[in-house]
């Protein structure tokens, strides 16, 4: 009998309770979300359509703020410096993202092999750079690159060769990308490794009985099974790449080749604070954010892996 009478009571309670409580739990997050994400985005979008225009005409016209439509976007996208910055960002990303993910996946697969020696030590060591702030990582690598303090130069000079200056010339891109790779491999490796560990071992046993080598198992079973984690790490690596700022900025005192507008975010910063052109900076920010969103959604769609759980 109780089985018949209980459920309606519970359902009633549930319906009554489940209105107020969840909103209260969400309230702090919602307020912060609105204040520090939604309103700034809205404000940036608003600013990106505003600009200074001469009003009144003639020599006595006053500059005043007004709606300028898409002018700022046109200005941003026809600016050769921004386009060059995007180009540099692309070169940097093409080096940094695949190498970060490739190395992370390689290390994760190797850690997951049976009979690997020193796995614990290697795992911890590779993870350590994650705890090093980007600015400090850049300082470390900067000193390792700088001919006057580099161990590479020290060795080269002892064997009679000149110093190697990676901060000037074609080596600059790999040099900057290397800092991001160094900082990112460990974290991505751990994500991939933990998801490899989540695969039940009996999945491999059948393959091993069939005579599959560890290479076959990695390539045919493990990589497809961790594909969702790979998509997610790829996504974060991509988002991280689009907002690279601290590393090139910190390297600037060490090399003359990193301009004030080396990557888009540096240019946005210059437009906003050095040139006081907030509208142009806002338009570039909105374009960069939209670009990131579009690329992320395309990546998620292409891989179709329901990577975020709720589809």
């Amino acid at each position, binding site marked *: 009998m109780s089985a018949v009478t209980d459920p309606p009571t*519970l359902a009633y309670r549930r319906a009554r*309770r*489940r*209105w107020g409580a*969840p909103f209260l*739990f*969400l309230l702090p*997050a*919602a307020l*912060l*979300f609105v204040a*520090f*994400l939604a309103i*700034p985005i809205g*404000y940036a979008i608003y600013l990106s359509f505003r600009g200074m225009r001469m009003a009144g005409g003639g020599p006595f016209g006053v500059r005043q703020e007004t709606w300028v439509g898409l002018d700022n976007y046109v200005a941003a996208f026809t600016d050769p410096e921004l386009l060059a910055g995007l180009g540099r960002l692309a070169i940097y990303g093409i080096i940094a993202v695949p190498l970060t993910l490739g*190395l992370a996946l390689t290390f994760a697969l*190797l850690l997951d*092999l*049976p009979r*690997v020696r*020193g*796995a*614990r030590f*290697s795992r911890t060591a*590779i*993870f*350590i*750079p994650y*705890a*090093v*702030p980007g*600015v*400090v990582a850049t300082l*470390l690598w900067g000193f*390792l690159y700088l001919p006057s*303090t580099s161990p590479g130069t*020290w060795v080269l000079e002892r064997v009679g060769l000149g110093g190697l200056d990676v901060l000037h010339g074609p080596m600059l891109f790999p040099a900057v990308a290397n800092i991001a790779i160094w900082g990112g491999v460990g974290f991505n490796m751990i*994500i991939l490794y933990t*998801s490899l560990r989540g695969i039940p071992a009996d999945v*491999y046993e059948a393959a*091993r*009985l069939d005579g599959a080598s*560890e290479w076959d198992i990695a390539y045919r079973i493990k990589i497809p099974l961790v594909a969702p*984690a790979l*998509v997610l790490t790829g996504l974060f690596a991509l*988002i991280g790449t*689009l907002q690279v*700022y*601290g590393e090139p*900025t*910190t390297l600037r*005192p060490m090399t003359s080749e990193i301009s004030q507008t080396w990557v888009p*975010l540096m240019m946005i910063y210059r437009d906003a604070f050095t040139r006081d052109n907030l509208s142009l*900076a*806002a338009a570039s920010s909105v374009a960069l*954010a939209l670009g990131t*969103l579009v690329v*992320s959604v395309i990546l998620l769609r292409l891989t179709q892996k329901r990577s*975020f*759980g709720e589809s």
Partner: protein
Amino acid sequence: MSTVTTPRPAGVRRLAADRPRPRPASRRGAILPSVVLVLGALYCLVPVVWVLVASTKSSSELFSTFTFLPGTGLVENLGDLFAYGDGQYAQWALNSLVFAGVGAVACTLVSTMAGYALAKYDFPGRQVAFYAILGGVLLPGITLAIPQYLLMSKIGLAGTYWSVLLPCLISPFGIFLARVYAVSAVPTETMEAARIDGANDARVFVSVALPMMVPGMVTIFLLQFVGIWNNFLLPFIMLSDERMYPLTVGLYTLLSKGSGTPSLYSLAIIGSAVAIIPLVAMMLVLQRYWRLDLISGGLKG
């Protein structure tokens, strides 16, 4: 991390040994991976070791002796570092600790409550809230820094501790992780049982759900702590008073001023070394509590 490693069944190794495949091949297969991993470990450790060694050198030794040969200037360098600008370095370290510590604790609580509500309640607008958070995860947070600064200066908060602390309290990724963890760690039956015993929603959350979510909360806390500690652009934009800088911005200004002045180089080096040590130590101590499988765990839905 050691808590999530599941031991392979012992049978696997025996079966492998029974196989007709010659043993040397399998042994070589185990050596090559170890070598590659050790090379990876060296790649990651060399810059850290370098800065620790370089921090022991006096400014003249820095440019003359072999890079990996310890010097004699450690005590002097440390003295210089903490004497710089009337003890600014210690102030920066304290600022970083306050930003990261307070920010991460508050963010963890906010995220846990929100993630729990999203995971365990059905209410109108849940889907909208979820997509808003997803959008927040994908949005490059750094592009927000400039509009955040402009708004902060409008309400007169720019240049204060609050201007750096407040934006760190909301982490869409933290909420996402909390939701994933609440789905898997808090059984609905247990919540129902507590409700039948007369507990209200607040009590169910505090006494039933919260203890179950602690491992997830530790992970969110650590991710957010490291994230705030490593943040550069936000404090760089928001703050103008050098005494309020966190370590990242402080070391950056030290280096900018030091370009061309070798004595400030050794200051930046010892400053980097000292800045790394607490965070690396914290990671090594706490790594067993990291549940980074959460991040990948959320993928399977």
